[in-house]
């Protein structure tokens, strides 16, 4: 099966609710068939609005959305054939689990035998066989969630939308459900558009992540790229932990630049800066900075330990480094004793490639 590249396409989509503020600005997004794309962003960033426009519950103020090359703005939700998993599951409380799953099949006038088969298959897919006669109220949150997923998939939709479906679950359940949804996606190859504000969820499950802020997609790329190579300081800040230095470019050449800080100077990788004198925020992931590095690194600084917090598998060390007293290091607890004690001065090194000079905040 050849995969269609522009299976879902947002083309210059704007959305405003009140005619004054644009909730979504000039959104262009292509989703490949069978892909798992997550829209990630803080609340109010427009991600849910995008999902609702795709589902048909909101109309774009401008632009068009294409599903398999067909414009869908004028198609009502029930004719789009898009499955949806809602934040609060939206199971029909007056129907049994079986009836909930049979609902999309019954409205499509599918024969009774086929309905039985399909519902049974969908239930076993979410390992809930034998729960057909229960009412949703008799199920735990995790089970309700699975029913909601099964119901969105039972009528073989081309696209499934998920609107923060794991938000109401506790941490352990959420993690196991993440894997479960990921596996279901991999096994049936349906296109999934997933909305969340939980970056861990997004990184775990997605093929690609679209980071939303202020109605715009800030970056659309694979999880590893997003984490390792954020293109602006919002993405760097939003995804994972991040140490920042604010400064001014004093020299730029050959894919590296010097950034002058209030105290001292560091070498960084120019991403969104082009000329000397520009203001910049330099972003370094905590695990990229090492204590007493063995290999030669082009940034070497001395910092004073201000706080040590034990985290089980690693220890977090807060340093005062070059005037930044919020500099965080993550030291694996399996690493040799590095004499991490409060008040000690230690050597910190990192490669300039990992210090990304981004736009100023």
């Amino acid at each position: 099966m050849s995969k269609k590249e522009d299976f879902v396409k947002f083309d210059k989509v704007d959305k405003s609710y009140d005619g004054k503020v644009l909730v979504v600005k000039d959104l262009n997004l292509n989703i490949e068939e069978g892909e798992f794309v997550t829209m990630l962003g803080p609340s109010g960033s427009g991600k849910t609005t995008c999902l609702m426009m795709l589902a048909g519950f909101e109309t774009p103020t401008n632009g068009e959305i294409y599903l398999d090359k067909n414009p869908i703005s004028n198609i009502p939700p029930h004719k789009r054939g898009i499955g949806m998993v809602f934040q609060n599951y939206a199971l029909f409380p007056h129907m049994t689990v079986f009836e909930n799953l049979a609902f999309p099949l019954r409205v499509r006038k599918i024969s009774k035998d086929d309905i039985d088969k399909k519902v049974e298959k969908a239930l076993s897919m979410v390992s809930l066989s034998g729960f057909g006669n229960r009412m949703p109220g008799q199920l735990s949150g995790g089970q309700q969630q699975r029913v909601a997923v099964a119901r969105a998939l039972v009528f073989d939709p081309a696209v499934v939308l998920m609107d923060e479906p794991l938000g109401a679950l506790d941490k352990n359940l959420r993690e196991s459900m993440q894997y479960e949804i990921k596996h279901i996606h991999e096994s049936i190859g349906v296109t999934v558009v997933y909305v969340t504000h939980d970056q861990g969820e997004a990184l775990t499950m997605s093929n690609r992540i679209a980071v939303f802020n202020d109605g715009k997609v800030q970056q659309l790329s694979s999880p590893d790229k997003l984490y390792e190579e954020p293109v602006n300081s919002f993405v760097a800040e939003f995804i994972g932990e991040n140490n920042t230095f604010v400064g001014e470019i004093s020299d730029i050449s050959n894919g590296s630049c010097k950034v002058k800080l209030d105290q001292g100077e560091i070498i960084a990788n120019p991403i969104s800066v082009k000329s000397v004198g520009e203001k910049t925020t330099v972003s370094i992931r905590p695990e990229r900075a090492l204590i007493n590095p063995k290999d030669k690194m082009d940034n070497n600084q001395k910092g004073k330990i201000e706080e040590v917090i034990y985290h089980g598998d690693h220890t977090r060390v807060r340093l005062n480094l070059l005037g930044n007293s919020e500099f965080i290091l993550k030291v694996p607890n399996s690493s040799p004793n590095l004499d991490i004690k409060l008040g000690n001065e230690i050597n910190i090194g990192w490669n300039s490639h990992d210090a990304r000079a981004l736009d100023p905040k």
Partner: protein
Amino acid sequence: MSSENNKILTTDGIPLEESLKVAEKKNKIKAFLLVAPLLLFLLITYIIPIGGMFSRSIDDKLTTNMLPKTYKAMEKWDGKNLPSEEVFEAFYLDYRILVKNKTVGKLQTQLNLEKNGFKSALKKLARKQKKFKEGNYKEQIMNSHKRFKNVEYWRAIKRRAPPITYSKYLKAMDMYLNEDNKIVQVEEDRRMHRILWLRTLEIAFFVTLFCFIMAYPIAHLLATIPMKYSNLLLICVLLPFWTSLLVRTASWMILLQQQGLLNDFFVWIGLFTNENRPQMMYNKTGTYVAMTQILLPFMVLPLYSVMKTISPSLMRAGKSLGATPTVAFFKVYFPLTIPGIGAGCLLVFILAIGYYITPELVGGASGKLISNQIAYHMKSSLDWSFASAMGLMLLTGVLAIYWLYNKLVGVDNIKLG
């Protein structure tokens, strides 16, 4: 409160139940004292009056007490032919005492209720008995008025012998016990109570239906529009609640009467000519219109409170799963509002079935309900036992509806808010 018979022991070996009782005793006493005023209030204003109503509605001791000797003598009488001299003598003796005590009027009224024409016969007897000689009372009484020669009148007295009667209940159903102690119906042209009962049910049913048809969209609107508008709209719905019932009914009179605003408007737009103004008041139409408007909030509020709890994502889920808006509404939304519909309909129906002021003012003759008849017997005819009987029948009817509702829908499904 619970009466579970577990034999679990506490750590000290005392049965758990006992230990719990001791521990909870103080709280229970406190709780009881807190509700005691309410219980007392209910007892005085509700239980006792209902008991009183019931005993009054079946009480028939009045005649029994006024004619003690007669009823004793009548025990042996078979009721076929005229009673023996013994009965006549006893009746004369009882009657003489009543005349002396000047309580004879009550007996005359009571027996006249039982059989028409008794009053005049008894009045004549009261005059003539003063000259009665001792002995052979049968002849003397029979000679005082020709009706005493008729065995029917003596049977009528005998029928009043038992101290309790259900004749008031029969009367409310347009039936009575005839001379042979059989339940028969009154003549067709005098069956007014049955018409009233049926009309009460009919009006209550249609008022409930109209309220439902109008309240459902309003409640839905209230539950879905943004808060700032819904508050305003809710006040509009509740405004009638804060206005006196009498004022609201009176304003309907202004609107609906033949020279009223609505009729003026109809004439103005040319719907009717000035001579043919439709009668919209003092008939069923008036009762329907005014009662529907007055009872509307009782339907809106339970519906609104239920609809507010229905997540909008359910309808969206229905649509996203492929149901047209209509199908999604009837398969998803409507079934979820049934608890509110049940509560609203039950509330409106029960209120409507006992409605009094509005039909009294705008109903006219054809828009009157059974409660107006009850009021008539309370205030005008002073037949309190009959009014009590009808009141209890109404109460029983309401309880029956409640029971039926519980069977069909389940009372625990009711949601009032």
